[in-house]
């Protein structure tokens, strides 16, 4: 055999070896066996020097071809093997993606405060500020300045919590004390009107207290959001439009709103606001007691007597006020059947909202 033939034979043999290598290590062994320092191709190439000048160019040409063919086969094979290795590594690293993730617990805002925040959002958008007031109030702010007559039943010891007055003053109205737990957020109206001049656009969220035994539909402590507007030219139509907007924001655009005339000492005309039942759409069902409507808040035009207490001219300014019960809204919105859930701190309740 000529050297040329030897080379061709070696080429065929080495290419077979390359294809036969199934691991990167085996492939490297093949490379070393042919192209390494002691490799068989290397040995032949080293032997070129011994060839005659006529033979050398041809053999040199063949041997280069063989080497290139082998090197490119090695590269291809290596890439292929690397691809396989990568694929098997990826396969080995695959996980059951349905296993639970690693998580931090998510803190939940109390549903009442979510509702209050939502109310604040809606009215902030209408240009209302947020005001606050004390929870332990004076009779004057809670009742007198809100046009409650001296013998108004709400002042009774069985309805309102009274706080021991340590000032030494003699109570004007209720026997022992003129200091009480506010029974509504409406005293906030009086505070705002005392300290500010119209235009007034304000809401007052907060806790309020009434002497009710805690049961599914009563709590001695609950949450209200008061609203007050005093400006020139404010009408009952404005009150209606404002509350309709609020209800739609709170309960959705397809709910209907109606205002029914009612009575409150500190507004006139007064009304109660109903929203159409979300379950029956107003047809009447068990959840709305067959009425088709759910009462959600009370409102009215500020009574001129209230303006009298705070020195606002009722001929120049008119205004409206409303009081929203956060428990009522949350209860209706989420179907909470027992108010006591709101106050127990059961995390199974808190996590639902």
């Amino acid at each position, binding site marked *: 055999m000529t050297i040329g033939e030897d080379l061709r034979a070696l080429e065929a043999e080495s290419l077979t070896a390359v294809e036969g290598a199934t691991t990167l290590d085996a492939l490297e062994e093949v490379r070393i066996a042919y192209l390494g320092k002691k490799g068989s191709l290397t040995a032949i190439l080293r032997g070129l020097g011994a060839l005659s000048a006529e033979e050398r160019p041809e053999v040199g040409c063949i041997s280069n071809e063989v080497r290139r063919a082998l090197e490119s086969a090695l590269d291809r094979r290596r890439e292929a093997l690397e691809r396989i290795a990568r694929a098997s590594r990826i396969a080995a690293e695959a996980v059951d993606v349905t*296993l639970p993730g690693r998580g931090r617990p998510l803190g939940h805002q109390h549903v009442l405060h979510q509702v209050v925040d939502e109310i604040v959002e809606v009215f902030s958008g209408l240009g209302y500020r947020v005001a606050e007031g004390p929870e*332990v109030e004076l009779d004057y702010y809670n009742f007198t300045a809100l046009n409650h007559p001296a013998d108004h039943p709400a002042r009774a010891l069985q309805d309102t919590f009274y706080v021991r007055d340590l000032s030494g003053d003699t109570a004007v109205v209720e026997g022992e004390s003129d200091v009480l737990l506010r029974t509504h957020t409406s005293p906030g109206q009086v505070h705002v009107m005392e300290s500010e001049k119209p235009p007034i656009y304000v809401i007052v969220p907060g806790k309020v207290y009434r002497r009710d035994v805690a049961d599914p539909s009563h709590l001695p402590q609950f949450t209200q959001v008061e609203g007050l507007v005093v400006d020139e030219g404010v009408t009952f139509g404005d009150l209606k439009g404002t509350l309709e907007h609020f209800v739609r924001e709170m309960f959705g655009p397809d709910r209907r709103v109606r205002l029914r005339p009612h009575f409150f000492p500190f507004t006139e005309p007064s009304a109660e606001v109903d929203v159409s039942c979300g379950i029956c759409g107003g047809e009447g069902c068990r959840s709305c007691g067959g009425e088709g409507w759910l009462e959600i808040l009370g409102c009215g035009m500020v009574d001129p007597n209230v303006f009298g207490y705070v020195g606002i001219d009722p001929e120049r300014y008119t205004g409206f006020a409303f009081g929203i019960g956060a428990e009522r809204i949350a209860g209706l919105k989420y179907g909470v059947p027992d108010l006591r859930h709101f106050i127990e701190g059961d995390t199974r309740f808190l996590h639902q909202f």
Partner: protein
Amino acid sequence: MRVSLTWLKELVDVTLPVDKLCERLDMTGTKVEAVHTLGAALDGVVVGQVITKEQHPDADRLSYCSVDVGADEPLNIVCGATNFEAGDKVPVAQVGTTLPGGVTIKRAKLRGLVSEGMMCSPTEIGVGGEGSGLLILDPDAPVGEPFAEYYGIADTVLELEVTPNRPDCLSMVGVAREVAAITGATFTVPASAPAEEGAPAADLVSVEIEDGALCPRYTARVIRGVKVGPSPAWLAERVAAAGARPVNNVVDVTNYILFELGQPLHAFDLATLAKRDGVAAVTVRAAREDETIRTLDGQERRLASDTLLITDDDGPVALAGVMGGEETEVSEATTDILLESACFDTASISRTSRRLGLISESSLRYERGVDPDLASRASDRAAALIAEVAGGTVAPGLVDAYPGQRAPLQLRLRTGRVNALLGTDLETPAIATLLRPLGLSAEGSGDELEVVAPGFRPDLEREVDLIEEVARLYGLENITSTLPGGGGRIGGRTSRQRFVSRIGSVLRAAGLDEHVGYSFGDPADLDRLGWELAPDELLVELINPMSEEQAVMRWTLTSSLLRALSHNQRRGIADVHLYEMGTVFITSEGRKQPKERLMAAGVLAGSWVRPGWNEPAPGLDFFDGKGVLASLLEALGVERWSVRAAERSWLQPGRTAEVIVRGDVVGWLGEVSADVLERFDASGPATLFEISVPALLKAASKVTTTFKEIPRHPAAALDLALVVPEDVTSERVVSAIESAGGALLESVRLFDVYRDPEGVEDPERRLPEGTKSLAFSLTYRAADKTLSDADVRPVHDKLVRKVCAVVGGEVRS
């Protein structure tokens, strides 16, 4: 207020179907709370006629009857009653009927014979009467007709919510007037004048009112020779439909007039009143010290000195407007009656009724306000009715003391004002047309009306009261919805309010759920917590708490969170992370209102999460609480804060710290002591913290955040493990490192604390006795170049020497 539709329709020709009428009432301010259908309970009871009546073959006391109920075949009924004969008409309950007593009629075999229904006694169908005999109906009763319809007990009763400003709607006439006004129907006021004869009433009765402010009017009539007995059926039914128990013909008439006209009446047995020269001298006056009266309900009552009384010369005979006295009550033996029809001060009646816990139909009406003009008309009508149902003659004349007589109130109603307040565009005549059906006279033209408010509408005192009437009769639904257009308003929360809401957001981001607890506190929690108030501090006491456990206002959020923790743990929930933000209250001698302070507090127990497939769930402890606080303070921009070991009686010593911002203690945190947990029925470890929001706000307000350049050159990190005596705190070493660090030291982080395990003998010890090893990672960085080892090493070596000297430690080898 219960309104019988049958009765109502006698007063007003309302033709609307019930649901439409209810809707009109709702939408004009008289809410219909419920609609009761009377007689509905008697569905299935029909008029029947006994065709044959035979003795039951196997039972002496039973008869076996064939009864025609208007069906194809007569019913066979076994009956135990004896008071009837073949041919009689009786109410028959058919199979399937459930009677008011709850009995359902079934086809049943009685001593061998099948009975297909039941003939009924009055009590069985709830129409009054006594005994077990059947109710025998008129011979002309139509066989097969539903009994309730035939008997006239089919009725619809509306239960109305009457607002406090509408005393007029506490009467049938008032409701009829209202219904006429809101539906356009016509209505008539029933009136009657009694036929009078004999000696004038003034010869028998005199009336004196001590204080006309407390009793604007008192009238008395005398009816003689009455025969007290059961009322005729129509009267008893009317009174029962309105919600009162029929008593006797005289009392029932007074109740009937009360419901019909809204005028409370009281009938005295004239014979029992003390006489002065044959004249019963009635005086209306306030009670004297220690006066007593035995009221109709048999109770002896000691009277407060401002109780308004009706008295004769012997003393009190009635609590004015609230309840009569027992001694002067109308009884079977009564023949002569003094009929009181009066008007009393609303506040006085309300005080008396509330003080004595006596709420009656009378007191309810007097409290809201009774029209003084009504007294005479009501007395006339009642006297005529008494004479009609109880016989007797009405003595001529009404004895009438009327010190409170006033001219009707004239009110001005400006059309412009109506429209300005309502946002309407009504014209003057339209307004007058709305008001007149209410019984108001509204005269005038142009842009103003003169309105006279009748006595039965005491709520109409001002222009705005009339505007309210216009609004509800015009219909709130007809007022166009608008939004206030005024300018110059700025909405949203204040920066303080935003800060407060940020505290909540951060605590939630840290994994805490928000709790809202009671603002009430249990004074016994002082002992449970071992809490000591400052010498001048007092708890805020409620005068009328719901319970001992809620007798004060809370002074800390601690108890609220411990109770919530216990609530969850007792229900098997171990992982509890709650925060609460709320007001706490404390007062001191001389204060009217207490100090109110907003606090933020949290409790951590269990783990953050339940152990997972790929992660353990370490128990929460002091350092988780501290971590939450660190996040909070960082988020609020409070950079310079620290904690120091402290003591709180409810927290475990050695695991308690005060939180200090700029030298002020703003709150505390620590693990709750085992004793306290036990007292709150909770289990530990539980970490609590409570921080003053105003203090945080104050600290945060001093913070100004400014941009710091982001480092461009890499940092060099070197570790340092120091062996220091046990009592050297981490904080002390860190501050020594920071102060020795110089410009290149960027940050220090503690990454390990090592102590030799307990009981390790000397040769095995890695640290000297009484020491610990603290390992820190120090980061050095220069703003202008990459630091080489040659740059850092000398700085670090110098720092190590300084720190060792300052804290008395040495580098751990």
